[in-house]
């Protein structure tokens, strides 16, 4: 069975370097320079996969990234495994393993193949139609579909490879290193433009590098020879960076492109370690030159998908570039001259070509004559009506095509063959062009979409711009370069090009068969098994928009994005609907052009670099003392400090009691701090807070509530007046950045006349909050010289002093209702300060407490937490905080909104306290509150926002928002839960020390 189809040595294949690899468990040999596809073909392996829906045997179709069929799993079962890789892009190396996807138990015998025989039951939209009902069965259907579809498998252990990102700025980016790209890059770089040239393949030169049509000459040399000399010259050009194995995945606006550079995928496992596998290049280019080439189109005819049926250009590349014969009895099927070039290429290498089937009536070009001279039979005006061979093509049937191309006549001729090269003309690769937002137009004569309206600094050159002949390419490229790079002379001015001029083509989107369409299988999208029949069915069922037809039939929805078949899909729709292609529009090509690995996308941002986090200066102490942490915004905050295996509840109960009975200490460094200076600072605060600030004395602190312009509470915190024109504002931990942004916004845009300057100083200070009846004694030990009497240092005041030689700011403010101090020092002294407090507090059993205890203590006092008890729909009035809203001030942010009819409604949700009738039941935060249990539908009055078991009150307490709650004091309500209804009573939200006596205790 195995035979060697290596024909003649190729300069791109190193036959001294023999490589063994495994495919579907079997060992094969290839050479350095082979792709998995070329090596398999050299071993006469065509069958590489099964199609998605019908599980039909499929073979290698192309030689590039547009491959729809040869999709393999690389290195299955290892942590480096990767699904959905195109065999045409995998460079083989010693030890490579690959396997077919989408088949079970094996590619040779696939149970799903039964779908092929059931295919009349699998029309377009089959999945949509069949699995719609009953809805509850969907899970079972999904399992069945996924199992039998058997797409590739993702690795189950973590990726051992390293990925990287790199930013590149260049004057000129050239995408594609075929003849146009090479000449463009060379001339750009020579004219002092910093130039980057990218190509997805490992060798430069595109298809011209194996272009040996003897009738085409550049400067009297074969194009391939001429281009090789040009490539050699590239290496000596300054300003030019060349990257191969680099595929541009996305072309965004403003010439921002993302490319994936493959660095180790072609290396043996031992050479992969400790190297960067793939690098995402983030490129900003002043100008982009797209030289992405063109993709050969297949032809759409009955059973056009058998293994052995390939693109004509691929058959040629395998022979010329890789030195591999794809078959021993080759036939070509074409609508233009390029199949003749492929045929001659094979002929020159001694590979047998049986015949060429041409749907045209004739062609007079030199290459066609050469084919005839070579004795290869040409069937003019013929089409293939059927093919045979299940796992490998073994024959084709042809018939004469009618003049209008819609039917066949005469008798059927059968031709035996094992490889069919199909040439349907060329489609410019305009994918990246359209991604950039630029617009195409349809050229009715050439039957292709061409770049039309550029939206960024870009040009499309070569065949992606619609020039297919070398003389046109060079002439238009030269003019384009001069116009767009503003240069006078180029290398291209004096090039002499001779070419074979004939350029005729006959375009038929769907070729007829002797059977009715319903009995045929003309595949349009190979990967998704969409046939011309499906597209026509969609149109019959009323689909009109190309985007809808695409989704309904799944045409173009595979990993190849329908690179081969999209044009035919459009053509068939246009023909069937009787409209012009240009009027139909094209489908949208979205990034990535070829699939990207997740690794490349995330780059270095994995593991501990996945997300940024911030730590306070006291963090090490918390870690050493076994704190549990919680995330608050980006901060890691100490949550609670369990000792001797305490649960969170136990720890929090202990911490809460200690803080009220003796002394507690909290790391409050994360609170946002904004330094406010300027002669209008007081006026500014008047405008941003709801209460009055002008009369706040220097050295005093005040609590402030900040609203949005819609009247809803936005943030809160204590602000201290440090001097005549100097304040320090604190914000919530999570709100710091947004508050600063909002204040800047007003200062810069609404009130530019105010003399105010804002600086974020959150990270500059470390803050320890010392609280409890013994806090004063502890502070006294730390700063003996400071007069801590209520007269000299009352509640809501501030002192600037020193601890030893360390300057510190102390605010006597309280978020717990206890006598407490917030001590701020320069961040680098934070840990020292903390240790000093712990040391001085030892005799008072000072207890460090975390955010959970802080929340509990403030809830006992009925203090809100913005974002927990509020959700952007609560006004200060809703929070029963009318006292903080100035009636005298003419204006402040959000004031007017407090008098809107909606914000003044009596039945808005309002903040209340809730007590459970059974004091041991702790409500769930988020639980719904109702007044009637037997109503249907039950009316939701509100929900629980904060809930704790208070060790100080020895009962459960909760804050809640309840519709009209303000007037419900003492009312009995219910909190219905899954298994029980909890009886609750509306209460004053201040549960503890209502008279605030403890502040001065």
């Amino acid at each position: 069975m195995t035979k060697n189809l290596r024909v003649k040595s190729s300069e791109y294949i190193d036959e001294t370097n023999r490589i063994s690899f495994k495919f579907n468990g079997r060992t094969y040999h290839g050479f350095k320079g082979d792709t998995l596809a070329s090596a398999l073909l050299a071993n006469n392996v065509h069958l590489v996969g099964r199609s998605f829906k019908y599980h039909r045997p499929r073979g290698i179709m192309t030689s590039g990234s547009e491959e729809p069929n040869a999709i393999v799993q690389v290195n299955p079962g290892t942590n480096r495994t990767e699904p959905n890789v195109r065999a045409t892009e995998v460079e083989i190396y010693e030890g490579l393993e690959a396997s077919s996807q989408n088949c079970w138990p094996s590619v040779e015998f696939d149970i799903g193949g039964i779908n092929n025989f059931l295919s009349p039951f699998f029309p377009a939209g089959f999945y949509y139609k069949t699995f719609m009902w009953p809805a509850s069965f969907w899970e079972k259907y999904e399992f069945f579909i996924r199992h039998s579809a058997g797409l590739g498998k993702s690795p189950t252990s973590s990726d051992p490879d390293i990925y990287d990102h790199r930013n590149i700025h260049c004057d000129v980016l050239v995408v594609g290193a075929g003849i146009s790209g090479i000449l463009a890059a060379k001339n750009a770089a020579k004219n002092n433009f910093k130039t980057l040239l990218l190509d997805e393949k490992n060798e430069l030169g595109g298809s011209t590098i194996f272009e040996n049509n003897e009738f085409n000459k550049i400067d009297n040399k074969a194009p391939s020879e001429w281009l090789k000399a040009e490539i050699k010259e590239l290496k000596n050009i300054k300003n030019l960076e060349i990257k191969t194995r680099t595929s541009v995945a996305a072309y965004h606006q403003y010439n921002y492109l993302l490319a994936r550079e493959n660095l180790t995928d072609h290396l043996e496992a031992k050479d992969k370690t400790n190297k960067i596998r793939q690098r995402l290049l983030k490129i900003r280019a002043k100008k982009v030159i797209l030289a992405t080439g063109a993709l050969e189109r297949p032809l759409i005819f009955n059973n056009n998908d058998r293994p052995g049926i390939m693109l004509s250009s691929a058959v040629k590349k395998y022979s010329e570039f890789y030195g591999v014969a794809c078959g021993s009895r080759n036939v070509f099927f074409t609508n233009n001259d390029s199949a003749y070039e492929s045929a001659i290429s094979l002929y020159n290498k001694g590979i047998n070509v049986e015949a060429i089937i041409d749907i045209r009536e004739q062609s007079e070009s030199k290459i066609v004559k050469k084919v005839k001279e070579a004795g290869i039979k040409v069937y003019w005006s013929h089409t293939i009506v059927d093919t045979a061979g299940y796992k490998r093509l073994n024959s084709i049937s042809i018939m004469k095509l009618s003049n209008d191309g819609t039917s066949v006549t005469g008798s059927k001729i059968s031709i035996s063959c094992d490889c069919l090269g199909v040439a349907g003309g060329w489609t410019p690769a305009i994918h990246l062009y359209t991604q950039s937002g630029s617009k195409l137009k349809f050229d009715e004569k050439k039957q292709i979409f061409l770049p039309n309206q550029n939206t960024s600094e870009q040009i499309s050159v070569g065949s992606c711009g619609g020039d297919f002949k070398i003389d046109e390419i060079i002439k238009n490229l030269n003019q384009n370069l001069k116009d767009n790079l503003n240069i006078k002379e180029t290398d291209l001015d004096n090039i002499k090009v001779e070419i074979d001029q004939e350029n005729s083509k006959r375009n038929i989107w769907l070729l007829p068969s002797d059977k009715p369409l319903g009995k045929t299988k003309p595949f349009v999208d190979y990967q998704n098994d969409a046939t011309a029949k499906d597209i026509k069915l969609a149109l019959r069922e009323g689909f009109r928009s190309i985007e809808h037809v695409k989704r309904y039939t799944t045409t173009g929805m595979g990993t190849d994005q329908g690179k081969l078949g999209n044009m035919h899909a459009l053509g068939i729709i246009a023909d069937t609907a009787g409209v012009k292609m240009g009027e139909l529009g094209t489908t949208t090509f979205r990034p990535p052009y070829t699939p990207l690995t997740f690794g490349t996308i995330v780059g270095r941002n994995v593991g501990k670099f996945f997300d940024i986090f911030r730590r306070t200066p006291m963090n090490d102490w918390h870690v050493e003392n076994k704190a549990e942490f919680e995330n608050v915004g980006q901060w890691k905050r100490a949550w609670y400090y369990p000792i001797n295996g305490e649960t969170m509840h136990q720890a929090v109960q202990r911490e809460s009691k200690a803080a009220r009975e003796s002394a507690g200490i909290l790391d409050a460094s994360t609170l946002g701090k904004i330094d406010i200076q300027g002669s209008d600072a007081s006026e500014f605060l008047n405008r941003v807070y709801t209460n009055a600030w002008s009369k706040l004395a220097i050295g005093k602190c005040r609590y402030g509530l900040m609203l949005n312009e819609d009247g809803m509470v936005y943030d809160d915190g204590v602000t201290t007046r440090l001097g005549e024109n100097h304040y320090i504002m604190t914000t919530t931990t999570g709100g710091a950045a947004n508050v600063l942004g909002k204040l800047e916004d007003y200062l810069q845009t609404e009130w530019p006349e105010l003399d105010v300057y804002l600086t974020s100083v959150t990270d500059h200070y470390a803050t320890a909050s010392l609280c409890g009846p013994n806090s004063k004694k502890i502070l006294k030990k730390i700063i003996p010289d400071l007069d801590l009497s209520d007269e000299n240092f009352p509640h809501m005041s501030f002192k600037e002093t020193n601890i030893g030689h360390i300057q510190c700011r102390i605010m006597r403010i309280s978020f717990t209702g206890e006598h407490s101090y917030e001590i701020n020092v320069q961040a680098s002294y934070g840990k020292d300060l903390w240790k000093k407090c712990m040391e001085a507090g030892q005799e008072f059993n000072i207890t460090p407490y975390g955010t959970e205890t802080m929340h509990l203590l403030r809830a006992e006092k009925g203090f809100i937490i913005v974002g927990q008890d509020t959700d952007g729909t609560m006004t200060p009035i809703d929070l029963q905080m009318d006292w903080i809203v100035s009636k005298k001030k003419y204006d402040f942010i959000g004031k007017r909104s407090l008098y809107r009819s909606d914000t003044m409604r009596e039945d808005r949700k309002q903040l209340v306290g809730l007590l459970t009738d059974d004091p041991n039941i702790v409500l769930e935060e988020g639980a719904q509150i109702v007044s009637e249990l037997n109503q249907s539908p039950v009316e939701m009055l509100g929900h629980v926002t904060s809930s704790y078991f208070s060790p100080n009150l020895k009962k459960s307490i909760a804050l809640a928002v309840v519709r009209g709650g303000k007037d419900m004091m003492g009312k009995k309500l219910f909190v219905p839960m899954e298994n029980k209804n909890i009886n609750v009573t509306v209460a004053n939200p201040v549960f503890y020390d209502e008279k605030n006596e403890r502040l001065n205790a």
Partner: protein
Amino acid sequence: MFLINCPYCGERDQQEFKAGGEAHIERPKQPTELSDDEWAEYLFMRKNIKGVQFERWNHAHGCRKWFNMVRDTSNDEIKAIYKMGEKPPTQ
């Protein structure tokens, strides 16, 4: 991904900026004088144009300055950028 020419810093990647909605909506000087409808007009009503739109942008991760931008929302072409307080360019 836009390349935005901050009037204070020069060209920077879009990631550094925050969009701030429609431009040239001035906060009323005397909100208390306005009817509910007039206040609602200021508070809620935004145009969301398909085409040329005047917008506010902030160089949030840079100089923190706010500025105005004229952008065609249909193709994201930035037509002009000018500082706060400057007159919008006439077309």
